[in-house]
């Protein structure tokens, strides 16, 4: 077997999570499902939703990558400018923001009465409406462009330092350097980012409905939600969810054929900068790209801060419900993060071992590709389906109330695995490349290897993955809203609850608190990770 058996553990875990959701629902729906299936497959609404889902996801992915490339290249080129670390940290935040908070912030900027729209209109220029495809794409680029930038920079950081030096010494111009040096390292990373972004956009729900302007903008996820809630048509929900997974898997297969390895990841590259004289114009262009990209990502956060500061923050912090929601969020988030990182590490090491066995050359085997992609597919299994399916099973055999926190943490962990994996993969692979033989020769294995080799070398990546997974779980709403009871209230849940009872100010304050927490987390992860062995050697 090319891949250590242990690498299949995370995949099996995720598969079991999905199967555990689908099976009980399928059994429940089985009587008389034949007609339902025929009906669902013949429904033009389903096909229209599917088409729209794919079109918007493809466009969103393309645009996110399109904007990410210049920003990533500019950030790579300007390795010595002082705010770079801050920009990279900022770029982790959008995905951690609950969708509804982000959407309202985006509307506050680009909407009918948005700050930017009014500015543009006061200059006498018509600002186009964001309701419709444009708004959906705008929001998706906000969420995903920063992710793609981080992934692309991760790819670039796996480039040997000599390459960059050689390229400058050989006097390559920008175009030649991009084509012959940067692009070969960015491309696989971008392919990997593309698959993530595509999935995130396929399952987009709040963004698509709120900014879509009308039911013409409907994703399959909405149809699944409708089937499982108002219609309580389980057969249809399961079927549509399976269609969603299958279509995404197919899109992946096409993407893989189009080229690009899956294993590329996201890291904070720390290469020693050296003085290269950019011609002044290139320098200005690069800085301009960075500034525009940063302002685009930062602006919605400014809106969140602005609105949040108007709230009675000290009053909020004193509320028992807020405090307990904070604690619940952190505990569940931490559980989810630890589980996610554990699974992702196992997966990353398994993949790295497989790569080691083919000498880090040639093309990845089918099983490697399967590992990399299959683990990501969990992202397109709708959380409503997972929650409902597991509810049915647990209800039959145990205590739903006791299981709720565990289920919330588990599902959030599963959703964070694809991200954590991409954060860990590059470091795991380079560690394996350098030290695997040495460790085996010295018979350092098991926990000793984890403590003496893996942890010191991967500390930075592990902490980053932990913080990112925690941030993702903190911002998650979907799972909790479905599974949660009043015993398990998290911060995003509280935000939606306050919004749902006219308390917009409170919700804004809570969103600010959530943002601050996430930022603090990323800062912490970056700071404590800096001393790691990996950072020292690079």
């Amino acid at each position, binding site marked *: 077997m090319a891949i250590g058996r242990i690498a299949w553990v995370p995949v099996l875990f995720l598969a079991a999570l999905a199967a555990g959701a689908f099976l009980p629902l399928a059994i429940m729906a089985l009587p008389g499902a034949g007609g339902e299936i025929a009906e669902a497959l013949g429904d033009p609404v389903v096909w229209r939703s599917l088409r729209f889902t794919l079109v918007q996801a493809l466009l969103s992915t393309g645009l996110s990558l399109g904007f990410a490339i210049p920003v990533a290249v500019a950030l790579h080129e300007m390795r010595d400018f002082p705010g770079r670390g801050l920009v990279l940290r900022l770029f982790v935040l959008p995905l951690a923001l609950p969708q509804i908070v982000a959407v309202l912030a985006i509307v506050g900027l680009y909407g009918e009465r948005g700050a930017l729209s009014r500015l543009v209109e006061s200059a006498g220029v018509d600002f186009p409406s964001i309701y419709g495809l444009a708004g959906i794409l705008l929001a998706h680029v906000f969420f995903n462009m920063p992710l793609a930038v981080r992934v692309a920079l991760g790819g670039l950081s796996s480039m040997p330092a000599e390459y960059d030096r050689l390229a400058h010494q050989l006097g390559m111009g920008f175009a030649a350097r991009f084509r012959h040096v940067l692009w*070969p390292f960015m491309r696989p990373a971008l392919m990997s980012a593309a698959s993530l972004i595509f999935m995130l956009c396929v399952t987009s729900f709040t963004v698509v409905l709120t900014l879509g302007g009308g039911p013409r903008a409907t994703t399959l996820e909405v149809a699944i939600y409708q089937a499982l809630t108002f219609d309580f048509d389980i057969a249809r929900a399961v079927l549509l969810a399976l269609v969603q997974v299958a279509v995404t898997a197919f899109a992946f297969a096409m993407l893989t054929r189009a080229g690009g390895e899956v294993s590329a990841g996201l890291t904070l590259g720390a290469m020693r900068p050296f*003085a290269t004289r950019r011609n002044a114009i290139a320098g200005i262009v690069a800085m301009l790209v960075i500034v525009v990209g940063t302002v685009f990502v930062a602006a919605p956060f400014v809106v969140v801060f602005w609105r949040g500061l108007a709230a009675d923050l000290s009053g909020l912090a004193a509320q028992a419900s807020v405090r307990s929601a904070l604690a619940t969020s952190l505990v569940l988030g931490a559980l989810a993060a630890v589980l996610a990182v554990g699974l992702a590490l196992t997966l990353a090491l398994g993949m790295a071992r497989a790569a080691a066995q083919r000498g880090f050359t040639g093309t990845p085997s089918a099983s490697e590709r399967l590992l990399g992609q299959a683990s990501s597919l969990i992202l397109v299994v709708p959380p409503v389906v997972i929650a409902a399916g597991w509810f049915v099973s647990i209800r039959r055999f145990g205590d739903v109330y006791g299981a709720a926190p565990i289920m919330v943490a588990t599902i959030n962990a599963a959703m964070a695995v694809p991200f954590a994996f991409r954060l860990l993969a590059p470091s795991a692979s380079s560690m394996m490349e350098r030290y695997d033989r040495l460790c085996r020769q010295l018979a350092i294995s098991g926990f000793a290897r984890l403590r003496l080799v893996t942890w010191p070398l991967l500390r930075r990546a592990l902490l980053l993955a932990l913080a990112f997974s925690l941030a993702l779980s903190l911002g998650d709403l979907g799972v909790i809203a479905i599974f949660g009871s009043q015993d398990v209230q998290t911060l995003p849940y509280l935000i939606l609850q306050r919004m749902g009872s006219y308390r917009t100010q409170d919700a804004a304050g809570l969103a600010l608190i959530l943002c601050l927490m996430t930022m603090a987390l990323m800062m912490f992860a970056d700071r404590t990770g800096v001393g790691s062995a990996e950072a020292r050697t690079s």
Partner: protein
Amino acid sequence: MTEAAVSIRCDDVRFRYAPGAAEMRFDCAFQAGEMTALVGPSGSGKSTLVSLIAGFETPHAGAIRFGDRDMTRVPVSERPVSMVFQDNNLFAHLRVFENVALGVSPSLRLTAQDRATVEAALEAVGLAGYGARRPAELSGGERQRVALARVIVRRKPVLLLDEAFASLGPALRVEMLDLLASIHEDRAMTTIMVTHFPEDARRIAARTVFLADGATMAEGPTDTLLDPDVAPEAVRAYLGQSDRRPA
């Protein structure tokens, strides 16, 4: 034609890697067209010195001159320098031919004349017919030959080698040193070679600069500087007993 060889001077160059780190000092000169070896214990600053000369690091005091020109702040791409690293000299995704051709045209826009130049250089390093291969298909020695072929086509007056042959076996290393010597003879580049094998220096370098503790300690003709009988105390300590020449 290769541009006329230039001399290189480091005038009281000061450098440190991080604000708190120990300061390194380099004060030395390299004759135009001559081959000089940089030797010294590991951590003595050999690689740092060539990085400074190549422009990958910038001194915070002192000056680096190529002939009369002050190069201290000139960016990497504008210095008339070729460099060969110990590893990763070739872009793994480009073919051997393209890797060499980058030395002629950094954007790989090649005339028929350029192509002939590249082929000739490959032939000169003993790799005629290897152009279509990928670096992964070559041995370590062959990869360094490709790097030398690129040095040939670049025609820069300065050549820096940072432990370029350190990972090769003794016989292969000698072969490569001889190849380097022949290229040097042909082109008369001002060549600076970092090595931790004194015998490398003795074999092909007319002069040697000795470094220790992040500073240049001594310089002179290789024959005398690395002769255990007459070398300064620090050099003798570095050479140790085993390197004593047979009487």
